């Protein structure tokens, strides 16, 4: 295994593009090292991205959103008042990844690129409409977060491509988001089900919504039908029931060591209502 510490994303992409064997990028390393230790994935080239200037930065975009560096840890994200105020659902998703120790290292991009259908930070990003900036042999491109996962442990990124930042859109007025997951313990588990809801209100009425579900399909799903179930409503009982039904209908979970398919469907129907209520309340409080 070769260990690289490029100083620019261009160098990183070039190393990756030129590599003949297995390549992994190292940001937080909390997944890469586990796989390395267990000999599940032993890369030929490991490319540490943390020496690239700016990867730890969080900055306002000109549009009023946030540009989050690829090495920003969960703990650092959680300490950033601006992002926490705008996108609490994104932050709470990220902060549920692992322990305090893991929070010191784990990153949004790493969680996304690990390709887990149960990744806690990804539903929140999808629901928020986050984009990633990608650099690669074919140049730069911007990709929606929902277009990155390709299935368990797989992404749509091309060989030699590397994500350079996550872009959260402007929060805008009267919006709120929330992420909830179900685990058997209070901490330290992988989500059995994860649900993110992002919505915007006009008075009591929901006028926009994006809903993403984790761990109920081979990849994390954006579910427009669930969003449609609450758009135009005041999140009354009928809307919540429709929301629950839409989320359950969109779910095609498996039974595994973490839960049965039946249980996951039950839980997604419960959590999506709870998350929607939180997002709805947050949107009421959000003025700007």
């Amino acid at each position, binding site marked *: 295994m070769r260990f690289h510490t490029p100083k620019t994303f261009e160098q990183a992409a070039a190393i990756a593009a030129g590599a003949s064997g297995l390549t992994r990028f190292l940001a937080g390393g909390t997944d890469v090292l586990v796989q390395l230790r267990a000999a599940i994935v032993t890369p030929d080239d490991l490319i540490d991205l943390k020496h690239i200037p700016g990867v730890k930065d969080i900055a306002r975009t000109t549009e009023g959103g946030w540009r989050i560096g690829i090495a920003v840890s969960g703990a650092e994200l959680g300490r950033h008042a601006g992002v926490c105020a705008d996108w609490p659902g994104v932050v709470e998703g990220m902060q549920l990844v692992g322990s305090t120790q893991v929070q010191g290292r784990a990153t949004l991009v790493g969680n996304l690129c690990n390709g887990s259908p149960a990744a806690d930070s990804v539903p929140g990003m999808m629901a928020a409409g986050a984009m990633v900036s990608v650099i690669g042999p074919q140049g730069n491109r911007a990709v929606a977060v929902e277009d990155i996962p390709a299935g368990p442990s797989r992404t749509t990124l091309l060989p030699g491509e590397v994500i350079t930042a996550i872009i959260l859109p402007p929060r805008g007025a009267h919006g709120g988001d929330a992420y909830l997951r179900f685990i*058997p313990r*209070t901490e*330290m588990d992988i989500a059995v089900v994860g649900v993110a809801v992002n919505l915007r209100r006009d008075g009591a009425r929901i006028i926009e919504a994006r809903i993403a579900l984790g761990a109920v399909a081979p990849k994390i799903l954006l579910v427009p039908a669930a969003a449609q179930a609450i758009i135009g409503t005041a999140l009354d009982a009928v809307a919540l029931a429709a929301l629950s039904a839409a989320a359950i209908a969109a779910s095609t979970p498996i039974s595994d060591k973490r*839960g049965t398919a039946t249980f996951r469907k039950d839980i997604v129907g419960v959590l999506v209502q709870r998350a929607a209520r939180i997002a709805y309340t947050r949107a009421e409080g959000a003025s700007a």
Partner: protein
Amino acid sequence: MPKDDLKTAYRLVGTRPNRPDGLDKVTGRARYGADISAPGMLHAAVVRSPHAHARIIRIDASKALALDGVKAVITRADFPTGLTGEDWNLQENTLAGDVALYDGHAVAAVAATSKLLAQDAARLVEVEYEVLPHVIDVDAAMQPDAPVIRAGTADHSVPEGMHPNVVKYIEFGHGDLEAGFAEADLVRAQSYKTEATHQGYIEPHACLGQMGADGKGEMWVCTQGQWYIRRMCSAVLGTEASQLRVTPSEIGGGFGGKTTIFMEPLALALSRKAGGRPVKLVMSRAEVLRATGPTASASMDVKMGMKVDGTITAASVNFRMQGGAFIGSSPVGEALSCALACYTVPAVFHQGYEVLANRPKAAAYRAPGSPMAAFAVESLLDEMCHELGLDPLAVRLKNAAREGAKASYGPTYNRIGLVETLEATMAHANLKVPLGPNQGRGAAAGFWFNHGGETSVSLAIGEDGTVTVSVGTPDVGGSRASLGMMTAETLGIAYESVRVNIVETGALGVNEPTHGSRATFASGLAAVEAAKQAIAQMCARAAAEWGIDAEAVEWLDGAAVPAGPNAGKFPPMSIAEIGAKMGSTGGPISGHHEVTAGGVGASFGAHVVDVEVDPETGRTTVLRYLVVQDAGRAIHPAYVEGQYQGGAVQGIGWALNEEYVYGADGRLQNAVFLDYRIPVASDLPMIDTVIVEVPNPGHPYGVRGVGETGITPPLPALANAIAAATGVRLRSLPMSPPKVLAAIKANARG
């Protein structure tokens, strides 16, 4: 109030001094199994079967041996043949012979100059398998069509006509069962299941072994019992026990799982093959979960008869347990013996079967067998109390076993403290806390025998009157403190003047491990006797110097003094004075005590838990938890509380989320702490404790073992609390959210 005639006013016993090994353990200096290295050391890695059951056709290590730095590869061919009984089981479990019997079963081992190289080399060892049909579930393993794991394993006890996987049958009881059930106003029968769980000690098994061609060897190892390691390794390797010197490291938890061997002979065999270079072998967490000794899984039937006043008239139990692919590894006998031990029941009948399955060889786990039995019996008892409208704790008290009563397993009880324990439980403030919606309270009682066992302790007076105590029971949770306190109490000296050392196998006679809750009990009893021997010698030295009879000298507050006015008038001769001149008064002064300790006192406990269950997700939150248990006498109450709290939380884990999850392929699915879910700090409230003291007349300070009983009541207490909170009764562990939610939904459908 004192419950017996034993002295109750002590200077040290019952206080809470700092433990002597505390400084080493908070500074990182304490050395555990993997913390030591030796010059010329090699590192080992183990090749393990990925199949639950497979014939080993061929092992080709040529690619591994071709790597630069690989020094030895061993297979079963490197071990002696002809072993029988448990020795054969141990050898077979250390390294598979013709057939790999479970996922993770070791088939070969490699020694190399670095850890990474050894791991790389292990991956290059090619093993060709013929996969055989496997069976995991205990009930399935008894079915006529179940694959036969090893024909001819069954012992004399198994009746004709049973499946060859049934290897032991046990039956006992007393009284007229049918008459007892006929006399009852309510008779209920139910079936229960528990999944295998792991002790979950945080320190993986680790050892550093060295052995030459002459069969002389040394081993540094994390273990509960260095003599067990010595005997078992020697048996497996065909060497002589006394030629192997085993030094116990500090131990990072054991709970019964480190009372036996798993990979230790591999380090010695690799060393022998590599020309005597020391070999370090450290398990990964996945290896610990796949290939050490989890507990048995159980399938159990219970039938009980009760009168409307709560009197239990009769009870019968039928348990099936698998403890892996080896006979004698399940605790079915213990489970049966504990099942009804809390109660005096005129008619009882117990039946049990041990069954082989393609799982790792079960080891002891804290009160082996008792938690499963308690889950079944205490659940049914609770259910029947509610059906009859009775207070479950009052019913337990009404039927409680007490001194002079016939135990469910046969003999008559001596002084025991279940009644006092239940009374203290019923009086506790936790029981008066009002509960809210979706909340429920559950109680249960539990029992463990405790154990004495082979014990050898040596004590020596130092030149300055300080004292060294050498014991053979590794300190898993503060026993250096309790042993030092009892020694100092007996000698009348300061606690700080005693140093307790856990010593290697060459330094004492044979000791059983720290198991069966015996370290403070048995090593303590022996340390007190050794101290008394030393006191007798010191009195004799003083008598000689004073020119009076030794009988005319007594020991008081750390000094020899004349016994009464007729003995003569001499100032007290302190232990320091005696020690300072012992070279010129007859030589070194020491005391020894060697015994297979009897006088064991059983420990009973009762737990009460309050839970809240989320009716939409099935998740259980523990709100409040109370442990009440008879300690006999708490030498160091803080470490007694620690045993109660730790046992309770292991039981909570077992009850709610811990389980071995196997795939259809027979492979363990959750061999990582991420998915083998032991309780984390945020899952729990404080664990309230009450130490009941009904002194054990069989111990000089009244000690009963306290380590094990605490894991038995949580399983049924949680089930009873969940039933109270939800109205649904879970009869299968763990009571994980999917199971609880499914039960709630099924109940709602009616």
